């Protein structure tokens, strides 16, 4: 949209921000030494399990919490000590936090009224933003007359109408049902790109994060474990935590035979394979290999071999038929391997107890550095 305005996207920097909370007498680190940069107009997601510090980080950006250490910079201006109301942010809360005593119009107009804009301008801006979020004509209603999805749109409209430098979302979709969640996340993504407001989005739902983010910062125990695009995180996780949090994963233990920059020869299932390795691993080291369940194919035991593939013989221990896919647990070389097979009507099913040949391409294997990885 050309309006409410196309704010210049701001650049946000967190410089080794830390926060401790006093819990039962002793300090507990909620956020430790987090450094992040969000580029103008970018949507960055903070992703992690509950208690990882993602919401606390977001609240420090907003100014609801004061960091114990580190700095928050918006467009190179240090806002660490600045009150919330002077930071020019738009915050969308998990529970929407609509003012229950005000109509939709007054909720959205609130930020403009606080800025003392004149009535005509306020009316114009509010009506335009309500149309933008798909709620034209809803101005006279109260929040208890709206559905969850509609309340969410009002909350977004209220946050963007003030043309904030930053837009902050705290698990905004977690109170919606699954179907609506998918629809709303697409709308949010479209709206954010249209307005080009620099955005931080907090969620624990990896699919949601992958669907809408330009980049994702995976957080673990108060630290940033890895930052990257969804594809980078999925394809080249740098720790077992990230590998396990983004999608499902098999971790195979393997020994490094030879090492070269970016590559390593490892021994898997009695065969030597060259795989991508970053950071570099030393020869002789025992490492973990990442193998996604959908990268593994199952074939009958006596099926012909393809020379490029890494293969082994295993026994099906469990099978779950889920319609579009089948999930197997296969015992291979003393370990259990997760395998997902799509389009089962075409590929057929393997019975529990059956001996199968498992196979994967060398590109599907990726070496993990020794744990724990730096953030």
């Amino acid at each position, binding site marked *: 949209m050309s309006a409410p305005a196309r704010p210049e996207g701001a650049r946000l920097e967190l410089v080794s921000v830390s926060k401790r909370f006093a819990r039962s007498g002793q300090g507990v680190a909620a956020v430790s030494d987090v450094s992040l940069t969000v580029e103008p107009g970018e949507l960055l997601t903070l992703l992690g399990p*509950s208690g990882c510090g993602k919401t606390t980080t977001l609240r420090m950006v907003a100014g609801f919490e004061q960091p114990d250490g580190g700095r928050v910079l918006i467009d190179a201006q240090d806002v660490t000590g600045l009150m919330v*109301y002077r930071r020019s942010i738009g915050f969308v809360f998990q529970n929407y936090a609509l003012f229950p*005593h005000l109509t939709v119009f007054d909720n959205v107009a*609130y930020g403009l009224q606080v800025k003392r804009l004149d009535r005509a301008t306020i009316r114009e801006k509010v009506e335009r933003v309500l149309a933008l979020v798909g709620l034209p004509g809803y101005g006279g209603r109260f929040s208890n007359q709206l559905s969850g999805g509609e309340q969410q749109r009002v909350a977004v409209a209220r946050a963007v109408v003030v043309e904030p430098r930053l837009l902050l979302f705290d698990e905004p979709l977690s109170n919606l049902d699954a179907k609506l969640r998918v629809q709303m996340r697409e709308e949010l993504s479209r709206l954010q790109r249209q307005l080009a407001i620099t955005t931080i989005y907090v969620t624990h739902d990896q699919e949601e994060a992958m669907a809408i983010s330009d980049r994702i910062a995976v957080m673990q125990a108060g630290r940033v474990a890895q930052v990257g695009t969804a594809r980078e995180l999925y394809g080249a996780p740098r720790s077992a935590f990230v590998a396990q949090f983004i999608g499902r994963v098999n971790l195979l233990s393997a020994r490094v035979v030879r090492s070269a920059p970016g590559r390593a020869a490892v021994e898997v299932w009695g065969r030597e394979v060259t795989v991508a390795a970053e950071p570099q691993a030393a020869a002789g080291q025992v490492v973990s290999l990442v193998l996604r369940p959908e990268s593994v194919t199952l074939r009958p035991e006596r099926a012909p071999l393809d020379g490029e593939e890494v293969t082994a013989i295993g026994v099906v221990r469990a099978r779950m038929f889920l319609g579009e896919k089948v999930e197997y647990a296969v015992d291979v070389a003393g370990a259990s391997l997760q395998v997902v097979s799509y389009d089962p009507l075409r590929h057929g099913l393997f019975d529990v107890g059956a001996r199968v040949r498992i196979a994967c391409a060398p590109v599907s294997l990726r070496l993990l550095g020794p744990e724990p990885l730096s953030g």
Partner: protein
Amino acid sequence: MSAAPRRAPRDPALAPAVLLIWVAVALFILYPLARLLALTFWDGGPSLAAVREVVAGWQHRRAFGNSLLLAALVGGAGTALGFAFALLAVRANLPRAVGIGLDAAVLLPLISPPFTAAIALIFALGPRGLISYHVFGITSLSIYGLPGTWLSETLTYFPIAYLTLKGVLANIDPNLEDGGFSLGARRWRVFRTVTVPLAAPGLANSFLLLSAASLADFATPLILGGTKFPVLPTQAFLQITGLYDMRGGAALSFLLLVPTLAIFAAQRWWTERRSVVTVTGKVGAATRGKSLSTGAVAALAALCALTVALVLTCYLLIAAASLVRALGADNRLSAAHYAHVFSGGLKAIRDTLVIAAVSMPVGGLFAVVLGFLVARTRFPGRRALEFAAMLNYALPGTIVGIAYLIAFNDPPLVLTGTAFILVACYVFRYSLAGTRATTALLAQIDPSIEEASASLGARRDVTFRRIVLPLIRPALLAGMTVLFIRAMTAISATIFLVSLQWSHVTVRILEGITNLELGQASAFSVLVILLVYAAVLFSNLVMRRLNAGGIGQGGTLLGG
């Protein structure tokens, strides 16, 4: 992820608000008490002379003993009566209408002016009482002294026990009682071994609340106790107004302070142990209470019906006395008493209404701001402020009245003789209900609502004015209603603070009684009751309009 504790950064609007409240509390709560203690213990140097002198007087020692005895008796009888009402209301599966009627009748004594029960008992059971003399022909029955005071205070204060215990009984999971039955216990045994032990902290709490109320009561013993049964509040009053002995009055109020603080401490101790009662959180399927046999229900119903009848009779007698020449002697209808109320008594009514009208918004705002600061902000001395702010509420009115009289009679702050001293007294004594309602309401409002306002560029004071205040209107209303009720019916502190310029209806009621113009006193009382009832009804109507829910009306309106 949302479990993170929240802390707001320092806000420039916070400091002035906290400072303002602290100054007010220091000036109108701490300073008078300090002056009271100084007068008691300082005579050119630390001195115990005043206390020693007071303790030496046998009449004072008797008053001390009487006060404690009366407090224990009223606490016991009132708790027993309240427990009977609560059992009937919660465990007897009464029809809804009966329950509502019970509540309405029981509320009556709580919002009536002081003296009401006392005057009515004189009409009913006095030397020429309608019941004692005209029905039963007894003349030897003595309503004055300990028995009358005890009966009157019990009737006045048992509703506090009822409201407290009703909540306690309702919170006991019926499954616990069913558990007792399933193990083969009979009703009486379940009652003895399950119900009563679970209610025990509530019973103790109720006993202490009632004892404190009785200890602080000034009006009832003044009328029914007389010289036969002196208690501390009346002794302190006589010491000051009769003997002009301010220091002696201060020392007597110190004697009153000691048991009051002991009860206060005991009550805190008990409420902290209360965790036994409501731990389950999830209450089992609402089974019908079975712990009362039909016979027990009948006995309870009879007792409660008798009590309600007695209470209603009291009020009917007051109404009747206000409408006839002299109840019991000359029962011809007459408008003379009301004519007097609206001529000679008009000034007192006007003064009272003006003072109540000023106290309401000032006290309501004070209560709400204090509640907000305590519940939603962090600042050094927050706990201390919370404690200091409730002191005047917890202390007997006699102490507060004498402290105000001492503190504001000479510079730096001379307020005696003004309306302001009465307003200040009510604001700082009766705001607690509003503060509690505010904190209770705020506990239900997610802090993210206020954070949303801040994120949209509103300073803390703007957020308070435009978001918080509208959301806690029900608490403001409840607080103001309580202030109105108390300002209309207060006597124990008021009596020290009225002047020629500013009078009060309750003082006129007292004058009516001491001048043996009971008809006039009754007419004043009826007027006050009607005004207060109208205020409660109006407030309930507005409350329903506000439609915010979540506020227990009875409990909140009366401020516990």
